[in-house]
C-alpha cells in the first residue's frame, strides 16, 4: 500500500519536474472542492486523431481530426450521445484500438505504431478498466478476479495474492475475498472491478458508464471512491452520458459527430497556449 502510494507520488512528481509552471502536488488538502486538482504534464495527447470504420461500401468517420490533451492527475468526464465518438475516443485512450490517422500518445508513447502485444502490455501496465456491466469472470472468487491483471503482467509479480488482497481492502471488500460474483451486490461487484483495475497501479483509470447498472445511492458511493482515488493521484477518465455523474469530474469534454463541441478547460487551455479543441 505504502509502496504503491509512493510510486504514484513519484510519477506525478517526475511529470511536474518536466513542467516547472505546473501546480505542485501539495494541493491534496483542497481537493474536496473538486476544483484546482493537482495536474501534471499531458498524460494523453491526441493530435488530429481520426478514426474511420469501413463497413462494406460505407465508411463512417467516428472521430474527425480531434486534438486533446489530458493532464496527469486530472478527473475528466467524456460526454456525448451514442454515436458522438466518445466510445471511439475511449477505445483509443484505453489503447484498445489505433487511430486511422493522427498521433495518439499515452504516457509519451505513440500507440499508432504499436503491435497488438505492445498495446496489451500498455493496457496491463498503465490503464485500469471499469465497465458498466462489471465484466467479472463467472464462478471466480473476488480475490482471483483482482489477481487477473497481475497474471498477465511482465514481469509477473511474486506476491499476487497479497497485492490483490490489499486492493480489495482498499475498496472496502477485505471481508469478501472468497465471494463469487453471484454472491455480491451490484455495488460490491463494481468495487471488485475497481480493485481489479487498480491492482497494477495504473496511471489511468478508465471507466465506461461505471454507474449505468447501479442504483443512485450505490452510484454515489462508487463516484466518491473514484474521487478519493483521484485525490491519491490517479488520472480518472469517465465516459458517461449522465450529467450528475459527470458533475463529479473536474473537466468535462463533450463529443458530437466525431468532434469535441464543448470543453470546460477550453479557456484555460487557450491561456496556457494549449491545442484548441
Amino acid at each position, binding site marked *: 500500500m505504502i509502496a504503491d502510494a509512493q510510486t504514484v507520488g513519484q510519477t506525478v512528481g517526475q511529470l511536474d519536474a518536466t513542467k516547472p509552471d505546473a501546480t505542485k502536488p501539495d494541493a491534496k488538502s483542497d481537493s474536496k472542492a473538486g476544483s484546482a486538482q493537482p495536474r501534471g504534464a499531458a498524460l494523453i495527447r491526441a493530435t488530429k486523431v481520426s478514426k474511420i470504420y469501413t463497413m462494406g461500401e460505407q465508411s463512417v468517420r467516428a472521430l474527425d481530426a480531434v486534438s486533446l490533451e489530458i493532464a496527469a492527475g486530472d478527473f475528466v468526464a467524456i460526454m456525448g450521445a451514442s454515436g458522438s465518438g466518445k466510445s471511439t475516443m475511449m477505445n483509443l485512450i484505453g489503447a*484498445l484500438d489505433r487511430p486511422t490517422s493522427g498521433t495518439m500518445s499515452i504516457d509519451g508513447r505513440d500507440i499508432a505504431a504499436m503491435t497488438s*502485444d505492445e498495446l496489451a502490455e500498455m493496457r496491463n501496465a498503465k490503464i485500469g478498466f471499469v465497465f458498466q456491466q462489471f465484466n467479472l469472470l463467472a464462478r471466480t472468487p473476488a480475490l482471483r478476479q483482482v489477481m487477473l*491483471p497481475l497474471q498477465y503482467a511482465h514481469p509477473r509479480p511474486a506476491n499476487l495474492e497479497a497485492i490483490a488482497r490489499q486492493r480489495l481492502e482498499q475498496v472496502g471488500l477485505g471481508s469478501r475475498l472468497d465471494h463469487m460474483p453471484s454472491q455480491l451486490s451490484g455495488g460490491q461487484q463494481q468495487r471488485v472491478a475497481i480493485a481489479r483495475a487498480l491492482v*497494477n497501479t495504473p496511471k489511468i483509470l478508465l471507466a465506461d458508464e461505471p454507474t449505468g447498472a447501479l442504483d443512485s445511492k450505490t452510484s454515489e458511493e462508487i463516484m466518491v471512491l473514484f474521487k478519493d482515488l483521484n485525490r491519491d493521484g490517479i488520472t480518472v477518465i469517465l465516459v458517461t452520458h449522465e450529467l450528475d455523474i459527470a458533475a463529479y469530474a473536474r473537466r468535462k469534454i463533450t463529443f458530437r459527430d466525431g468532434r469535441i463541441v464543448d470543453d470546460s478547460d477550453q479557456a484555460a487551455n487557450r491561456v496556457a497556449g494549449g491545442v484548441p479543441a
Partner: protein
Amino acid sequence: MTFLDSLRIAWTALRSNLLRSILTTLGIVIGVASVIILVAVGSGARSEVEKQIASLGSNMLVVFSGSSRIMGRAAGAGTELPLSETDMAAIRDKISGVVAISGQLNGSGPVVYGNANWTTTISGIHADFATVRDWPVVSGRDFNPQDLRATAKVALLGQTVVKQLFQGEEAVGATIRVKNAPFLVTGVLATKGPSSFGRDQDDLILMPMTTARGYIVGKSQVQNDQVGQLYIKFDSLTDLKDAQEDIEALLRQRRRIQPGEEDNFNVRNLAEFMKARTEVLNTMTYLLAATSAISLIVGGIGIMNIMLVSVTERTREIGLRMAVGGRRGDIMRQFLVEAVTLCLIGGLLGTALGAGAAAVIANAAQWPVLIAPSVIALALGAAAATGVIFGFFPARRAAGLNPIEALRSE
C-alpha cells in the same frame, strides 16, 4: 500467465459445464479405450499364440496318412495306407537334418486306479517322443528303447490324468489298469496346457508303441507295424520347406503314387499353421487400430465443436482478458490448454475403461493382460495430440478476436 494459471482457468471452465464436458470427451474415451484394448489384448493374444507354437515343439513337421479323407473324397478304409515303422526308418535315414522322430498312435479307453477311473486318450509312442515334442517327464523316468523292445506294460501320465486318478497321491511307481491290463506308472509328464483348438493336451497317457499296438489300440484294425502319425524334429539349420518337399517325394515313391495322382498322406508344418492365426490376429489389430483412429478423429471434431461454442459463449471474457493485458498468445494458450485438458480427462477415463475391458476379455479368453506403462503413455499422448490439433482452430479464433467487439458482445 503461467501454465498453472491457464490450467486453473481451464478447470474452472470445464467444471462449470460438467455434463457437456463429459459428453464431449466420449469420443476420446472410446478412442483411447480401444487403443488400450487393442494393445493389451493384441499382445496378450500374440504371446498366447507364441506359447502354443512353442508347445507344439519347435522345428517340427507332422506326417498324417489318409489325406484323401481330409480332401473330402468318399474313400473307404482300404484306400488309406497307414504310416509304418519302415516309413519312419526311411525318413530317418534318407532325409537330412532329422534330430529325432517318433510316431503317435492314438486310441482311447478307461484307466483305473483304486476306486478312481477316467477315460482318456491312450497313445503309443517311440522313445524320442519327449525330445520331438519338447515335452519332458517331470518326475519318474522316461521310456527307454528297452521298454519298446520288451513291449513293457509301462505308462507315462499326463497331468490331468494324475489329478483325476491320484488326487494328491504319488503316481510314480503305482500300478494302474488300462483296458483291464496292469501297467506300471514310470513317470509323469510336464504340464502342456490347452492346444490351439482348446483341447486339453494333458489328458492322456503314453505307452511304448509296441505295447500300444499289441494290447491297446484294437489289434484287429491295426497293421503289424503301424505308427499313427509321425512327429519329426529337425536341427535348427534345416529349412522346413525343403524337408517337407523331400518327405513328400520320399513317401510318394514308397507308396507308388503316379505323377498327377493326389497324395494319400499329408506333411504339415503346424507352426506355419499357427502363424496363419497370427495373421488373423493382425487383421483384428488393424481393424481396432482403425476404430481408435476414427474415434479419436470424431472425438477431436467433437472437441473442436465444443471449443468453438465455448469461444462464442465466452467472447466477453476474452475481451476482458485482452483489456486487462492478455496478449493473443496468452488467449491462444489458454484455449489450447483447455482442449488438451478435456482430451486428457477423456484419455484417463478411456484408459480406465480400456484396462477394464481388456481384463474382462483376457479373463474370458484366458489370455494374460499386458498393459505396459508405455501403452498408457501412448494412449494419453494420442489424446493430448488430438487436443492440440483440434483445439488449435478454436484457440486461434479466440486469440484473433478484436477486444473492442469482444467486450461489446452479449
